[in-house]
């Protein structure tokens, strides 16, 4: 491939485009041509550099200089100064520290990036960028030097476990599928990432699609499959587009299709889009959906390794699992196994959300404690408020209070604590969070996403939600907690698939860890965190209120009355407890009780 002394990445996010990024980019190309620099300097389009507000913007590598506010007219000057004379132009330079990627910033302390190593570093739409980062070297090694059994052995020895959340040994899974009678065999990549607030897989697909494709091809070789599906949710249009582009580029280079790299191994990949059902992340429902059927799970056994898509042996792994494979092959099982704990090896990506200073994507070695993640990686709780709970494992996970903060993040410890690894959603909550309300939120999600096939999940989750709603509305009755516990247990036990079996987990874990909050709602008709609208009321304090009328003017239902410079009053019968008055008051005069 051609060698460039410098790479210029121009941001083409909508905001930058609106500010003329395309015109600037064209001018830059023209100027480099006219200066005879076009063979030395490559111009690429990128996104999410992070300062679109000051756009158009660009990054110049290898120096890592970030220029903002560059217009088409500035280009001749900039090219002359920077690329001919080699001088940084301070007029446009913006400090690199200010670069903010809301999803994925620079690696924070204690982070180790394996899966995310290329995200934001390479151009995902250019296969050569990936190849330059040792891309497809693992595939070459596998096809050239390794027997399928050796590949499986390497993956097994690495200790890699399913990153979709269940944590089954990837090597063993591959072995089962390889041993299954029946041809053809299929490879599926589960990219139906549906947990609320989770976007680990999307970033990998958008930022480093080839790592997933390479992992799938290696899996195909190890198992003896010649066809793979990526099942990606339709809500990720950019991921779908990037994947399809990556597949085309890989085919053009002979890395996909007939006789890969000139060997007699052939493998190709097709992207299938989901239609918006969370339950299609469950592997049997996903397979039904690929086959064009209603996305409903079916009982296992038979497992997909024996009877999967089109009734044939099928191996299904998560995006993150596949993205780990090339690294394991290249650097060896021992390298991978050197990270993590005895039973949980390697790293895990998490999407951190909630009340912490640094939300977004992180990748940490397994075995790190929750405390380290929350305080060291995520920068601690916002406004130095007290930590209350962390919800880990997605909508089927659990809420863990402070006493679990020193718990290690690995499959076994989280399960023992009443949560689960899940696919990587992690929501951190401060003391202004009502745990009954949180349980209600997750229950609302899962009951809406139930496919409706089995009775406990279809009707049971709705009944649980109704009880939680009553409790949040202050209509809870003595005995409700026991009823909830019993119904949750029945739904967990008797549901068909993981969705129903896991759906009550947020309720069960909050009942276990925060029972007193439920009791306060039911017996005292009080929401301790002051969240549940029907259990709180707003009032204006006489001392601090200056009669500025801001609250009255902002109240959406005109519940506030009062003369200018006199105490204002909220009419509780009209008030809808939206909290806007509290937000707009400059004198902290609005109290919640």
């Amino acid at each position: 491939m051609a060698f460039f002394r410098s790479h210029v990445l121009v941001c083409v996010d909508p905001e930058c485009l609106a500010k003329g990024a395309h015109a600037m980019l064209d001018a830059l190309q023209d100027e480099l041509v006219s200066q005879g620099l076009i063979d030395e300097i490559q111009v690429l389009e990128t996104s999410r550099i992070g300062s679109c507000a000051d756009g158009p913007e660009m990054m110049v590598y290898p120096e890592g200089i970030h220029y903002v506010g560059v217009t088409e007219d500035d280009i001749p000057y900039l090219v002359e100064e920077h690329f001919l004379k080699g001088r940084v132009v301070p007029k446009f330079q913006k400090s690199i520290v200010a670069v903010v990627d809301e999803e994925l910033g620079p690696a924070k302390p204690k982070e180790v990036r394996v899966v995310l190593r290329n995200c934001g570093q390479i151009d995902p739409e250019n296969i050569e960028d990936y190849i330059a980062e040792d891309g497809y070297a693992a595939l070459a090694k596998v096809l050239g030097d390794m027997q399928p059994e050796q590949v499986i052995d390497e993956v097994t020895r690495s200790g890699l476990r399913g990153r979709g959340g269940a944590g089954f040994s990837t090597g063993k899974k591959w072995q089962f599928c390889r041993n299954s009678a029946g041809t053809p065999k299929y490879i599926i990549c589960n990219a139906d990432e549906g947990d609320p607030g989770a976007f680990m897989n999307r970033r990998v697909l958008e930022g480093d699609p080839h790592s997933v494709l390479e992992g799938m091809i290696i899996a195909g070789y190890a198992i003896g499959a010649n066809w793979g599906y990526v099942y990606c949710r339709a809500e990720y249009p950019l991921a779908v587009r990037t994947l399809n582009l990556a597949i085309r580029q890989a085919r053009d280079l002979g890395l996909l299709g007939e006789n890969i790299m000139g060997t007699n191994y052939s493998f190709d990949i097709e992207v299938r889009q989901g239609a918006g059902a969370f339950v299609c992340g469950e592997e049997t429902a996903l397979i039904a959906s690929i086959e064009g059927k209603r996305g409903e799970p079916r009982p296992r056994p038979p497992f997909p390794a024996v009877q999967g898509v089109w009734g044939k042996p099928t191996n299904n792994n998560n995006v993150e699992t596949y993205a780990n494979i090339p690294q394991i092959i290249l650097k060896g099982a021992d390298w991978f196994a050197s990270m993590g704990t005895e039973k949980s090896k390697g790293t895990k990506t998490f999407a951190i959300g909630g009340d912490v200073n640094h939300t977004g994507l992180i990748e940490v070695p397994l075995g790190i404690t929750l405390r380290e993640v929350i305080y060291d990686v995520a920068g601690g709780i916002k406004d130095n408020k007290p930590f209350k709970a962390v919800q880990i494992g997605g909508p089927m996970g659990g809420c863990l209070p402070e006493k679990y903060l020193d718990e290690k993040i690995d499959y076994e410890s989280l399960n023992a604590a009443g949560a689960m690894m899940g696919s990587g959603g992690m929501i951190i909550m401060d003391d202004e969070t009502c745990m009954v309300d949180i349980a209600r939120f997750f229950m609302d999600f899962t009951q809406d996403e139930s496919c409706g096939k089995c009775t406990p999940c279809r009707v049971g989750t709705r009944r649980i939600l109704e009880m939680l709603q009553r409790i949040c509305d202050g209509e809870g009755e003595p005995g409700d907690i026991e009823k909830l516990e019993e119904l949750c247990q029945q739904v967990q036990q008797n549901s068909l698939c993981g969705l129903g079996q896991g759906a009550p987990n947020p309720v069960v874990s909050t009942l276990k860890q925060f029972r007193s909050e439920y009791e306060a709602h039911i017996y005292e008709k009080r929401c301790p965190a002051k969240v549940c609208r029907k259990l709180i009321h707003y009032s204006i304090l006489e001392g601090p209120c200056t009669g500025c009328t801001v609250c009255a003017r902002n109240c959406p239902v005109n519940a506030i009355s009062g003369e200018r410079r006199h105490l204002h009053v909220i009419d509780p019968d009209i008030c809808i407890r939206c909290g806007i008055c509290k937000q707009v008051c400059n004198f902290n005069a609005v109290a919640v009780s």
Partner: protein
Amino acid sequence: MVNITINGNAIQVPSGTTVLRAAEQAGITIPTLCDHPDLHPFGGCRLCVVEVQGARLPMASCTLPVNEGMVVTTESPALTKSRRTILELLMSNYYDSGYKDGQKETTQFMRWVKHYGISVKKAQAPAPRYPVNSDPNPVIWVDMNKCILCTRCVRACAEIQGRFVWSQGGRGFNTRIVAGAETTMLEARCETCGACVAFCPTGALDNRLSMGAGKPSTVVTTTCAYCGVGCQIDLNVKDNHIIRVTSNPDASVNGMAMCVKGRYGYDYVHHPERLSKPQVRRYLLKGEPKPKASAGANPGENSDPLWDWVETDWDTALRITAEKIAQARDQHGADSVGVLTSAKCTNEVNYLMNKFTRQVVGTNNIDHCARL
């Protein structure tokens, strides 16, 4: 063969058998709703959960294949509680508007609800969710308030009839059985065979013609009179009248399947115009010549009293027929005679008609109406 133990009984069954079928073979009843031996297992209602030694959770026996050495328990206090909860959850979505149904005196669902001591009045939904009688189908009555989403109708229509009229719409709590893309049954290519009604365990799908007809005094297993397939059907009889036709699960020819004629076309039996004795034209009986029709009359119309139909006995009717056939053959040749037989005759009768036409009359002009 695979060896398993169910409730302490050692049982040997072929591999691939489900635990539910294995239990049936051993004479052990496991409560089911969505299961039906004629349909693919579904595993949705969860009423058939059993405990399997070593398994983390109870498993649905209808979809669970047997494994060598499997130890299964089908009754325990925990399982009873699970089944009761499942039935209560189903009941919380069930609403009986109080009309007299037309299918069965007691549905399978109601039998299990009563078996587990659940009060229908207390457990059922406070209000209906769907309109009663929501489809204009002329013979099938639809009341989705009684639907428990077992999908037996969906599977019966797809797997047995191959019509794919029913499917599931929506998801989660809002899942409902819909015809086509939420249209009417007939628009969704329904042939009104009533298989969905026959498989429905709750009365959500019912026989419209039999609504309010009550309980039969006798059930007569007979052969359908419509065609040569010879489906076995059960006539439900009350006061010497057929009030409905139901599938006979043991029918060797057709199983639960029937067509619209067999299941719903029984009104001719009691029809006032039904012929019960042979009739001939009066002129034939009297040996007169055929009366001339008046000018301008439509074909077959004749106001002459000799043209009237009169009842007679079989001997007379057959004698006249034989004479006329012989006359036509002798005067105009054998090929002037044509015979059309009926699908409503037995195979034996049709065989004899074939012999009669070809060997007695001497023509190949014979055809048959077996085009149902």
